């Protein structure tokens, strides 16, 4: 028994175990999502995060130990963002044709995302650091963490709020936009990428390649616009 626990102590501190666990949790979550016919509620990120969180809490593994292994997966977010240039290039004609609606939706969407998130959290009495953490919730994690920490928000809390937003947005996007009569794949994808960054973009690619490309553009542009407007909005709330 002491041999087994010795092995656990050794493996639990190694990157191999937590990298493998991350991949295993996602493969399992993706199978469950496929078995549920890709129902929006069976979101693979939500299922995988829930499973891993349960494992970390029951084994008493600190998050930094887990992240030593998981960082190899996390690192690929950067190259994957660069890779979005390829579907963007493939759909360059559609994008050029939709330039005006794209810019109008970008401005309206960015302002809505920041003002409504800060306004509601403020109404619930959230303190200033929490408001700074939730303000950039719709943009991709790397940008959001940078924006929040410049304004006194905790980057780790920001990451949690960003991923939660992505999961919620990916779940809601298709049913909600369908109910509102937004059927154009470009408009749907752009909304999903703007409101729910990479997780919304992944959802859009699942539905349609044109939707996925517009989601990728929305994610990139919203990162830039949000970084510019968050300080202004927080000042309006007296922070």
């Amino acid at each position, binding site marked *: 028994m002491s041999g087994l626990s010795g092995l656990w102590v050794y493996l639990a501190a190694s990157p191999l175990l937590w990298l493998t666990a991350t991949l295993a949790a996602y493969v399992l979550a*993706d199978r469950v999502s496929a078995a549920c016919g890709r129902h929006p509620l069976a979101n693979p990120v939500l299922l995988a995060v829930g499973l891993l969180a349960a494992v970390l809490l029951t084994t008493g593994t600190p998050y930094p130990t887990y992240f030593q292994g998981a960082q190899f997966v996390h690192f690929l977010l950067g190259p994957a963002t660069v890779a979005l240039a390829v579907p*963007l290039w493939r759909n360059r004609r559609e994008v050029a044709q939709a330039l005006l609606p794209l810019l109008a939706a970008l401005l309206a969407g960015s302002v809505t995302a920041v003002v409504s998130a800060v306004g509601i959290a403020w109404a*619930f009495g959230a303190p200033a650091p929490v408001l700074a953490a939730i303000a950039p919730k719709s943009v991709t994690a790397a940008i959001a963490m940078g924006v929040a920490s410049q304004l006194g928000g905790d980057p780790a809390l920001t990451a949690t709020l960003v991923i939660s937003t992505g999961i919620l947005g990916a779940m809601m996007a298709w049913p909600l936009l369908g109910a509102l009569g*937004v059927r154009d794949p470009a408009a749907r994808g752009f909304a999903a990428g703007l409101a729910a960054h990479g997780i919304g973009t992944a959802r859009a690619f699942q539905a349609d390649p044109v939707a996925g490309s517009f989601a990728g553009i929305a994610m990139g542009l919203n990162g830039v616009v949000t970084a510019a407007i968050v300080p202004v909005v927080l000042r309006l709330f007296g922070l």
Partner: protein
Amino acid sequence: MLGALLLLLGCQLAGEIAAGASGLPVPGPVLGMALLFGLLVLRERLRPLAPPPDKTALGPLVTALLVNLSLLFVPAGTGVVQQGPVLLQNGPGLLVALLVSTALTLAVTGWVFMAVARWVRR
């Protein structure tokens, strides 16, 4: 395959350097995406007969990354285990803010896009 990986990492690195040097609040990978897009456009102009990027090693690599894009958010998402105290204190407010704000953002963005597209077509 290695050449394609080098292209992605090289664009990201150039983007990080440009973001750091300019002091703009734009993240390096987003600038890297813009750079790669520019390179693809330039390549088409300069060598119109070259095979499209999908027919090169870049195609399968990009597909592999983007098909599994959801996986890449799992490590950061698992960070929720560290947020117990904040979530206990502000949980309901944060949940309502995330739900309502995300739904509102989706609706406004999708609706404005569609409305302006219709207006332009007229």
